[in-house]
């Protein structure tokens, strides 16, 4: 019995760490613990949070996706252009989502069936899709004037903006998917041991395509939401986004070797990243130092995780 609390502590160390951080910051940093600031914090990481849900599945299946930043930009741009040409919000959203799904499926086919290394494949897609975004928009931001579309980014429900609700919905849906469905179980299996999973009857290739397709879809949705918030489709939006998303997942305990993921961990990871950025803004820290901080925190989280697993093995 005496080992039980210790094991529980280890398992939830990141959550407890964050709780502690939050308390310390609330007491030491002015304006941190205010409704406006906390809502702003959540809004700032709403897009990262959405995509982190699907990236969690991607990493859990031992794959990688560097193209999400480009998909955000492209979906936003495409949505804005369709809206401009047709005036229909429905078509704009539909078009953006379809594009995202197709790009995602494309990634999946390249990686699962053509067996291109995931890092390389999505690196290539990242470049191509970014290029498409620039081509389609002629290199310029595409303004959005439609009230209905723009209102999504601003609308408050129970004091929280809709994008935050969307993100929360994603966490819920993907949490259930990961823990309570065959899909989630199989994803962890192909990450843990792809050959064993295949021999156990899991359709590995098809599953990988689905994971990337879902990722493309959710990322496109995030891109459309972003364009609603900044009232334009920007072809250079979200550069470096993929690294933020992957960092959030790693901070949340998702193993880069596959087979291990916890949705709650991802929530914490996203919150940590948002909090760090938020606090540095409140303290008026130079933007360049923020880069440094984010890198250090990521490294610290990974090292802590290593220490934990090494401790287990040594025992």
């Amino acid at each position, binding site marked *: 019995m005496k080992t039980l609390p210790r094991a529980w502590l280890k398992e939830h160390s990141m959550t407890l760490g964050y709780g502690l951080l939050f308390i310390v910051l609330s007491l030491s940093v002015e304006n941190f613990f205010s409704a406006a600031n906390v809502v702003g914090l959540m809004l700032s990481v709403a897009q990262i949070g959405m995509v982190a849900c699907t990236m969690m599945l991607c990493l859990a299946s031992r794959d990688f996706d560097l193209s999400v930043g480009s998909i955000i930009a492209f979906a936003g741009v495409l949505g804005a252009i369709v809206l401009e040409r047709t005036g229909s919000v429905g078509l704009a959203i539909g078009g953006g989502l379809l594009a995202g799904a197709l790009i995602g499926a494309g990634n999946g086919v390249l990686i699962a069936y053509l067996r291109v290394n995931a890092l390389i494949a999505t690196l290539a897609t990242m470049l191509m899709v970014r290029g498409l975004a620039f081509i389609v928009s002629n290199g310029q931001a595409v303004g959005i004037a439609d009230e209905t579309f723009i209102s999504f980014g601003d609308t408050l429900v129970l004091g929280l903006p809709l994008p935050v609700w969307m993100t929360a919905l994603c966490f819920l849906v993907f949490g259930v998917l990961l823990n309570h469905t065959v899909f989630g179980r199989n994803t*962890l299996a192909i990450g843990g*041991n792809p050959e064993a999973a295949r*021999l*156990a009857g899991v359709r590995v290739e098809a599953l990988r395509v689905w994971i990337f397709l879902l990722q493309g879809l959710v990322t496109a949705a995030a891109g459309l939401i972003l364009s609603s918030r900044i009232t334009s489709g920007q072809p250079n939006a979200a550069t470096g986004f993929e690294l933020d998303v992957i960092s959030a997942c790693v901070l949340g305990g998702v*193993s880069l070797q596959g087979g291990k993921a916890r949705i709650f961990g991802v929530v914490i990871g996203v919150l940590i990243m948002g909090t760090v950025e938020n606090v540095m803004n409140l303290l008026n820290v130079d933007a360049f130092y923020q880069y440094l901080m984010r890198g250090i925190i990521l490294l610290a989280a990974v090292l802590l995780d290593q220490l934990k697993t090494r401790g287990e093995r040594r*025992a």
Partner: protein
Amino acid sequence: MPSLQFENVTKEFPGVKALNGVSFEAHAGQVHGLLGENGAGKSTLLKILGGQYRPDGGRLLLEGQACDFHSAGDAIAAGIAVIHQELQYVPELTVAENVLLGRLPTRFGFVDHAAARRLVAEKLAAIGVDLDPAARLSELSIAQRQMVEICKAVMQDARVIAFDEPTSSLSHRESEILFRLVHALRAEGRTLIYISHRLEELYALCDACTIFRDGRKVATHPVMADVPRERLISDMVGRELQDIYDYRERPAGTERLQVRGLRSHGLPHELSFGVRGGEVLGFFGLVGAGRSELMRLLYGADHRTGGQVLLDGKPVSASGPAAAIAAGIVLCPEDRKEQGILAQSSVAENINISCRRHGLLGGVFLRHAREAALADEFIKRLRIKTPSREQEIRLLSGGNQQKVILARWLAEPGLKVLILDEPTRGIDVGAKNEIYRLIHEVAASGCCVIVVSSELPEVLGIADRLIVMRDGRISGELSRAQASETEALRLALPDEVTA
């Protein structure tokens, strides 16, 4: 003075006491066998010897001096070499590089590959192993990789060498080479520790032996030859075990599985055979004969270039394992580490990984309660030693891991054909008996059971019929009455070698 002593050694893991006050001695110029069921503590003992674990209590003495190893390197420096059950090698490096890993000869700071190859070639020749020092480990068979491990230990000139189930993937011939090696090392005055489940081997090689059960030492027999087999088994298991194979006559059913003309790039000769319902069909052959490849082909795991598989008259799609499982055919693979276990998942998750789900929204949502119940049922049935069903499978002993993989397949609903590839590899006598009983149970329920095994006594003990393969072909078929060691070997060995 004994060259190696364990004094009251204790080792604990969360929830499990792997070793509980174990003491025993081994002498130079002797082979000391270690026996015991899975989870009895033998592999843990070896890991302490090899410096990978540190004991929580007690101590280890070499030539009377207490040792405190902080790493595997310390143990190697002290003159201890351990050949593990789970082979540890670098697949992309050559034989020479693997054998001399960490101690490659250099010239002016650069690795001297020619010198490395020469040194290793000499050693290999000295121990009678035929391998090219420049070959890459990834190109070699499991058996050959094991030979490389053993060469590595010999190369380190260790005074204490421990073997953890070294013959599990070796053919007859390769095992013979190993035995000669062990005798030679013994004659050189080294201390040898030998873990195996194969009693015949232990009797042939060991001078003395120590038996473990549940983390404790049960007995040490200083003269192995004087101890009767039954005594060893009862010491290990804690109860009397009559016939471990437990064979029962079963009525022969109709032929349910028909394999016709199966071919692949790796198996160019057409292979055909049939299995009756209620029958246990054994597949024997030397390592490399093509048995596992044939089973994988049957299962759809490898690409077929020709042939058909019919179950109860209906053809089984070759599209992949999923189709085979849907038809009721399951395969428990040979290499549990590479093809079986999901290392980071729990025991329960490993058992439930493929069971088809039925019921409401069948196939989408997991039924946690049902899965937990299923896992518990099989943990009990197969006597899997684990503190709980949520325990990470990588923390279980090798033999218990094998039982979990077996449970995965035994739990499959709609099971019609059970194919087992080396199901008792790394499993102790008591557990083997449990598995044989389960095999008989499954067969008695009308299913077809195919057991691929390299252990002749096992396959002769449990099979109703025996098919022998040689060089990618079926060389013969023997009924239970006709089957004998000589006959089976005659069919398995290549023509040039006389039995």
